[in-house]
Every structure is written in structure tokens, then in C-alpha cells.
């Protein structure tokens, strides 16, 4: 009996996480999909009733905490929607404290109903990816469907989303989504917040770990490290620990002028940094449009 119960009663997603997913989908050149990570949180028990029925089973809410977008659509499943368990994408290590909780699919100008393949993928993900615990709540069962459209010469963008939960019976049941935001209504969630700042997942093995590379490669690696250190040092230049030390102790009399000087230099550095970010963003954009041109050629569109 209990096996037929859908694992989650509710799905909640913090505003910034949803915004990141929406941004990812609207900036993608075509349809996109990817994985959702998060955790199961027990919901407070329902109001007790006088009925002498069986005690209600504890209910769970799924909290989506991050997402990982696949580089090309339909990369971790086949045309029949069967999960490729060997896919390196699926085995990407999740953020500590969260596990694979489901997946999302975003497609433009299409109905906001699960498609034939999306149903199959959700079910296959639920059945084939079994994580440490045998508990249903630990299985990836959440499916977030996003659709967007724009009109009026791209002046108006509409984003729609719906969340579903895969049931052991094979059906996808719609669930309400609550968006966690700042405000008194969400005090509980913020009280339970633990800051996590994980390092982004980089799939390539670091070069200096390569044993076959020999002397030259490791030398290259050392050079690379030295170069990165220089770049890092340049950013911290003028903010030596000795100088910060003069802010306390005997030299503190010149406190004001010293702080002002540091602040001025910091502004200059920030401006330089902002310019660098801008330049690199331009390069990323250029690379992306080159990629799309190549993709178009590959798809026979030119």
C-alpha cells in the first residue's frame, strides 16, 4: 500500500534557484534539459482529527537546491526515454547535503503537459537510479516542466512551469510548487538555512595528476600554477598583511588616511576587475555564437 504513495506532497524551490533555471532555459539556443538536486524535508503533521482512522503517514516535501544543465538535449536518455545509467552526466557528484532529486525539461512554444518521452524518462529515472537509501523519497522523482514563449519582437517573454512527481504506479502527478523567497512567510526555511559554497563541478582531471605526461607536462603544470599565482598576487597587490597590520597598534593614528587610501585603491581594482569580466563575457558570447554557427552547419541549416 505504502509503496503506491507518491513520495512528495509538495515541491519547494528557492527563488534564486528557479531564476537560475529559467535563465538557463531562456538563454539556451533550443530546448534544454538537465538534472535537479535537492533534499527531502518532512512536512509538519496535519491537524489531528477525531476520526479513529489509521494514523496518516508522514508527508514529505522536496526542496530543489540546485540544477545541472546538460550540454546537449537528450544526452542522458535514449529516444524511448530510457535512462543511460552509464552516462557520466548522471554520475556527476552532487553538492554535499543534497542528492539527485529529479530532472527538468524546457521547451519553447509547446504545451505545458509532459510529453511521451518525458513521462518515460521520469519513470525510468525513478526506477533505475537508486541511491544509498531504499526509501522512495531518496529516488529522483521530481519532474519540472518549463515552457517559454516571446512575442512582440521579443519585448514580452512568458515563462510557465509545472512540477510533477513520478509515482511507483508509473503516473506523473502534478504537485504545487512553492517558491521560497525573503519575507515573514518563509522565516522557517531561513531559520533552517545552512550556508554551503561548493566548488563548481569540473569534469576534467587536473593535468598535474597525469602520470604519463612525464617531465615536460609537469613542468607545464608548474608554469601554469606559477602564472595563476602571479595573477592572484596582482589582485592582492598593495594589500599586504604588513599594511593591514598598520591599521592596529601604534600606527593607528593615521587610521583615516590609510583606510581612505586602501578604499581608493580597492575601487580602482574593482573597476579593473569589472572590465575584465566584461571582456571575458564578450569572449564567451562570441564563442557561443561561433558554436551555434557550427551547430547550424552540422544540422544542415546553412
Amino acid at each position: 500500500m505504502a509503496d503506491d504513495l507518491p513520495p512528495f506532497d509538495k515541491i519547494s524551490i528557492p527563488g534564486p534557484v528557479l531564476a537560475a533555471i529559467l535563465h538557463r532555459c531562456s538563454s539556451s539556443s533550443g530546448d534544454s534539459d538537465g538534472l535537479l538536486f535537492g533534499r527531502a524535508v518532512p512536512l509538519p503533521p496535519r491537524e489531528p482529527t477525531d476520526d479513529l482512522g489509521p494514523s496518516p503517514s508522514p508527508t514529505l516535501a522536496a526542496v530543489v537546491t540546485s540544477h545541472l544543465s546538460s550540454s546537449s538535449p537528450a544526452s542522458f536518455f535514449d529516444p524511448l526515454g530510457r535512462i543511460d545509467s552509464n552516462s557520466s552526466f548522471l554520475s556527476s557528484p552532487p553538492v554535499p547535503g543534497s542528492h539527485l532529486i529529479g530532472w527538468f525539461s524546457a521547451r519553447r512554444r509547446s504545451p505545458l503537459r509532459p510529453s511521451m518521452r518525458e513521462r518515460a524518462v521520469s519513470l525510468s529515472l525513478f526506477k533505475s537510479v537508486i541511491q544509498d537509501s531504499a526509501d522512495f523519497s531518496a529516488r529522483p522523482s521530481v519532474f519540472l516542466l518549463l515552457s517559454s514563449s516571446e512575442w512582440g519582437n521579443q519585448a514580452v517573454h512568458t515563462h510557465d512551469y509545472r512540477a510533477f512527481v513520478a509515482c511507483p504506479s508509473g503516473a506523473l502527478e502534478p504537485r504545487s510548487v512553492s517558491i521560497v523567497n525573503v519575507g515573514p512567510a518563509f522565516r522557517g526555511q531561513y531559520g533552517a538555512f545552512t550556508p554551503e559554497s561548493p566548488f563548481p563541478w569540473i569534469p576534467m582531471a587536473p593535468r598535474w595528476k597525469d602520470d604519463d605526461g612525464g617531465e615536460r607536462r609537469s613542468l607545464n603544470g608548474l608554469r601554469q600554477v606559477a602564472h595563476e599565482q602571479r595573477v592572484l598576487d596582482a589582485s592582492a597587490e598593495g594589500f599586504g598583511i604588513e599594511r593591514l597590520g598598520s591599521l592596529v597598534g601604534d600606527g593607528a593614528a593615521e587610521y583615516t588616511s590609510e583606510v581612505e587610501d586602501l578604499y581608493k585603491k580597492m575601487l580602482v581594482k574593482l573597476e579593473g576587475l569589472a572590465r575584465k569580466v566584461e571582456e571575458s563575457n564578450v569572449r564567451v558570447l562570441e564563442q557561443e555564437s561561433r558554436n551555434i554557427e557550427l551547430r547550424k552547419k552540422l544540422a544542415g541549416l546553412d
Partner: protein
Amino acid sequence: MAADTLPPLIAAQLNHLISNSPHSIKVDQVRSGCKNGLYSDRFTLLIPFCLDFIKWDFIFNALYPSVAPDVVFSPDDDDFCPLAGEEDDVSVALKNSLVDWNSKDSTRLLELVHKLRDAYVNYQRKRVGELDDARLKFEISTVFSREGIEVCMVSGADKPEEVKFSVPLLDTSLNKLVIGCPWKNEQKIYLQVIFPIIRSYSSTPAAPRLKLVSTSELKSLFSIEDVKLPPWLDGMCMAEYLPALEDNLKMQVVEAVASIGARRRFIEALAPLFGRPLEADPVFCRKATVVAVSGTFNFLVSFSFSTQFPKQQPTLALQSCQHFTSQGVPLMSSPINDYPWSPRWDTPQMAERIFEFLVDECLNFKKHCQDTQQV
């Protein structure tokens, strides 16, 4: 139309589907899933099923043509998942056509649509078969073996659920009955039977609603509106009802085909009196136009025939070759069908009688034309 912006591979698939499918499939709402909206890669298909259309959205990916298309089904068919569920011949065939998807093979979309439609036919049969209604269970057990029968659940927001059967009638090919048949698709007559669902045993089952439906082009040969359906008696079932209806229809179709011959002979009989017709419908002989002269007055006579010819007389219309409206349109008479006529006359006599009638009638028409033009 956005269909022009479909990438060549998808366009080839869609064109092959439209021109080769035995079902007349319509394409609607071609649209783009790309960021800049440049390449269209998704569209809605209206696929005939059970005397209605099902609307399915087919989603390709213009930038990744090798990815097999995906389908979003109608909102009412929430539990139709052809990729899950039991393995049978239909689902295996469907899966095979998806697994080795080849975007360069333009026949693939047609194959996919047909396999999906087969799976959908089975899905609806299963849904209806699971209903707890003794009469429906009996109907299903007796008529489901008929070839081409389709069945579906009909439900609306504010009406009770019903079950619709679409029963193809007459197993002979209607296309073959017509000489020089211009129809591309096989023409068919269907009986639509709608049963209310009765879940309690006590109430006496209400009679189903019956309606004849035919493919659209058939009406140039035969009009199903002229067919009177035999009454549905209490306690009747489809297996009892259908043979009598089919016999009746068969006779009427044979008469309709014979009527083509009668019309052709009539048009041929016009030639000795009026000269060779200016134009005539060579296949169904539903229309003919001849040129006539009375003194110095030249005019055209158009004959239009109903499928009930010679029981119903042809409708005549006269058109002057010499009188025009201020816009330059030739003056025409209103349709004439109150002249003397008997279906028992032999064909040359029919033509002669009309000729005689026109000798007088054209004078009235000439006068009418002159009056109109002077005003």
C-alpha cells in the same frame, strides 16, 4: 506561413506524411523552438480518429536533427503512455521506429504517426473495454472483430460520459465503382453510434444516437443525407442492426452509380438538339452547359443534376451572351426547375421536352435582359 521556415530535413518528413498518408492529416501551428525563432521545428498535427480529429504536438529540434521527435498528446489522454505499459506487436513496432530514428529518411514521420495512431486505437479500445456496462461489453464482444472499427470515450465538462463507435460500412471499394474515379483517398461511409454509459442494471438502456458520416468527396456521387436510417428497436444490438442497414445502403449506392449512366445518356441526348455541350463533368455528369440560339439571341443553358436524377429533374440556368450588368458580368436567370418533367419519359424525350420549354422560356429571358439593361 511558418511552414516555409522548416529546416529541409523536417520539411521532407512532413511533406511525405501529408502526401502519402491514407488518413487526411492536417498541419496546424508550425512554430519555432529556437531562441531567435528562425527555424520552425514543432507543429500540431490533426489526425483523423473515430470520425473526429486528435490534436498532437510533434516536437523536433532544429539544431539537433538526429534527436528523434517527441509528442505531446491531448489533455484528455493523460494516461496514454505508449512507451510504457505492456509489450505487444503495436508497441514493439512503435519502439523500433523510434530507437533507430534516421532524420534523413523522409518516410520516418509517417511511420511514427501511424504506429502512434495504432497504439492510440488500442488504448481507447482498452479504456472502453474496462467500463462496467453490460450492454457495451456485449457490443464489444460482437462487433470488435469488424475490420476498421474504432471506438473512443467522449466526455465533456458538463455532460455524462459516452462511448462512440465508428463502424465502416460496405466492404466493397466505392472508388472502384466509379469509372475514371478522381478520388485520391479511399471513400467510405461510416455509421457513428454513440452509447450512453449505463452502470446500473435496473434502468432500461436508452437507444444509442445514430448518424451516417461519409468522407467529403463522396457527395458528388451519393448524398448520405438522403438515406433514411432504419429504426433502432428496444433491446437491439449493433450486430443485428448493421446487416439490414448495409443491404439498404448497398442498393442505394448501386442506384447512385446507375444514376451516373442516366445522366451521361441525357447529356448525350442534348447534342442532336443543342449541338455538342460547351462543357460537361465527365466523371459524375453532375453539370453540363450548352450554347443555344434563338433568332439573334445567343445564350448559354447550364444543367445541374442531383444524385437523384432522373427522379429529380435537372435545374436549369440561362445566361445571356449579349447582355451584361454595369460591372460587365453576364446576366443570368434564377434557377428554373418548375418545367414539365416525368422520370418515366425515355431519355431523348426528356431532352426534347426541355428544348421545347426553352423555345418559349428564352423569349421571357431575353425580355428580362433587355429590361434590366435599360434600367
